[in-house]
């Protein structure tokens, strides 16, 4: 398909520019790693005081965190749209995007990708294997396929939420601090939802379904059968939220007002 070949052309170009700024790339990967390490330490500190949290053990929590890193890194590599309003609406860059014969959202994904973040996938896998080994989890032949499906679902959930938020920019270009707040809320999906109260659990499942990025899909691999329904809903929720977001986007484009000049 046409878009796939455009995608690889951009990736090639991206690597070419990035390799000329090698130091930059290394610093970025390093700071990502540091950030992930801090999060892990946080889990370890909490479990320094207790052995179980709402029935989840330390290694299970670590496993969930490891899983979370994989879809999150994929999201972070391709959907850098947290500054969409500033960059594309206020500065009028959207004008340029709209004069090109490729879907506007796809172009923004291509322009804003940051492939360094994909390194998080490796970190996530390492963390998962470490925790899984301690928990004595076994891997069946079909598990990798289910893993890929759940990861894609989780990444789509994230992408859907953030695309939907970015479309606000088409209606109003005033500054909002909603994006950083959303990144914080996203972190709640890394912990088992039954440690929160009912309202938060409901919100994280059906309204801002971040739980489908971490705890729900992980529970399949942790063999927590009470959560299996949710685990297998992950791709469905991902696709639904993503489609809603793209629809909102397409409507938003028709409301685009352009930057004055």
């Amino acid at each position, binding site marked *: 398909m046409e878009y796939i070949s455009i995608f690889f052309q951009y990736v090639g170009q991206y690597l070419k520019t990035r390799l000329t700024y090698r130091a930059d790339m290394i610093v970025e990967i390093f700071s990502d790693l540091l950030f992930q390490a801090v999060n892990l330490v946080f889990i370890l500190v909490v479990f320094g005081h207790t052995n179980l949290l709402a029935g989840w053990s330390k290694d299970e929590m670590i496993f969930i965190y490891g899983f979370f890193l994989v879809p999150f890194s994929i999201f972070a590599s391709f959907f850098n749209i947290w500054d969409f309003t500033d960059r594309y609406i206020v500065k*009028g860059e959207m*004008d*340029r995007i*709209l*004069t090109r*014969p*490729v879907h506007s959202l796809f172009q923004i994904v291509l322009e804003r990708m940051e492939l360094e973040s994909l390194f998080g996938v490796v970190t996530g896998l390492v963390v998962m294997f470490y925790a899984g080994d301690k928990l004595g989890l076994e891997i069946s032949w079909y598990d990798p396929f289910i893993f890929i499906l759940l990861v894609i679902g989780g990444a789509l959930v994230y992408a859907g939420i953030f695309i939907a938020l970015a479309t606000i920019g088409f209606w109003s270009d005033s500054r909002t601090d909603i994006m950083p707040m959303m990144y914080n809320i996203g972190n709640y999906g890394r912990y088992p939802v039954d440690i929160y109260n009912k309202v938060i659990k409901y919100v994280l499942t059906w309204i801002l379904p971040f739980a489908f990025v971490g705890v729900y899909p992980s529970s399949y691999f942790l063999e927590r059968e009470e959560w299996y329904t949710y685990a297998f809903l992950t791709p469905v929720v991902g696709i639904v939220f993503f489609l809603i977001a793209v629809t909102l986007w397409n409507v938003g484009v028709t*409301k*685009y007002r*352009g930057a004055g000049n």
Partner: protein
Amino acid sequence: MQNIIDVQGLKKEFKSFSSRSGLKGAFRDLFTRNYTIKTAVDDISFTIKKGEMVGYIGENGAGKSTSIKMLTGILTPTDGKIVVNGMNPHKEREKFVKTIGVVFGQRSQLWWDIAVQESFRLLKKIYNVPDQQYEEHMKDVIETLDIGPLLDKPVRKLSLGQRMRCELAAALIHNPPLLFLDEPTIGLDVLVKLKIREFLKRINEKYGTTILLTTHDLSDIEALCERVVMLDEGKIIYDGPLKELRENWAEGKQIQFQFSEKATLEELQHLTQEHLVVWEKGESDLVWVASVDADETVISGVIGKVTAAKKIADLKILEISTEEIIRNIYVEGAVRHG
């Protein structure tokens, strides 16, 4: 010949929120909002035929950019019908933009930190241009614009003039039959301007490319366009040949006197009372401009009377420039029909 652009009753309104003043006002804004509707483009209609080069002029805020953005599919019209290259620009955007080229003078199409030719290659991919067509066409474009030596430099290292030429080349990668240029010569020096004009003329002749051009620099339009469309406050106030505009408006000539001593308006009016003269003060008390009919007896009469009475340091006879014509039209707010 077929119409490339067909616009009927095009209208664009922007709704904007006007905030009340003061803290109390801000509080009221939370509940009820005052919206003001600004009409940027107000019911305009025109058609452009294949191969025409049309100058689209107007003051800032006259609605030029807004209408260009509707014609290129960036903005959705509030009302009216647009057919460009046989398509509705906004509805069929992705298919439509393959048939147009766009240069926004204040906005770059190129990627900032990659080499120009890499940008071209990405655009070639985006527009899905076959290799052979690209080679043939771009070789010609690169040669005419003389950008061969710039191709392996990153865009951020180019001067404005160099960048602009590359932007033009980038807009033509897919050899579109219709080209929109919004302020393509803004901030450029004369030599680059001349090169760009020459190039535009050439592609117009060679490929029959239709060109719609907005600019503040009327010399661009004089050099390129036979037809101008003039906008004011969202309405078309003139649409026709540039020549006619000049003929109807530039009937007179101007004589600029530079005196060696101070002159006053009364004194000068008194001197030339037998002719129809409008006196205007120039840059200083010493410089005065007389606008007269383009009639030899009047011109020599005025010069004779003035030079006989006052010492002059310099004297110039000026044709009224297009720029001045346009300014006059805007001052009067409508176009006289001769």
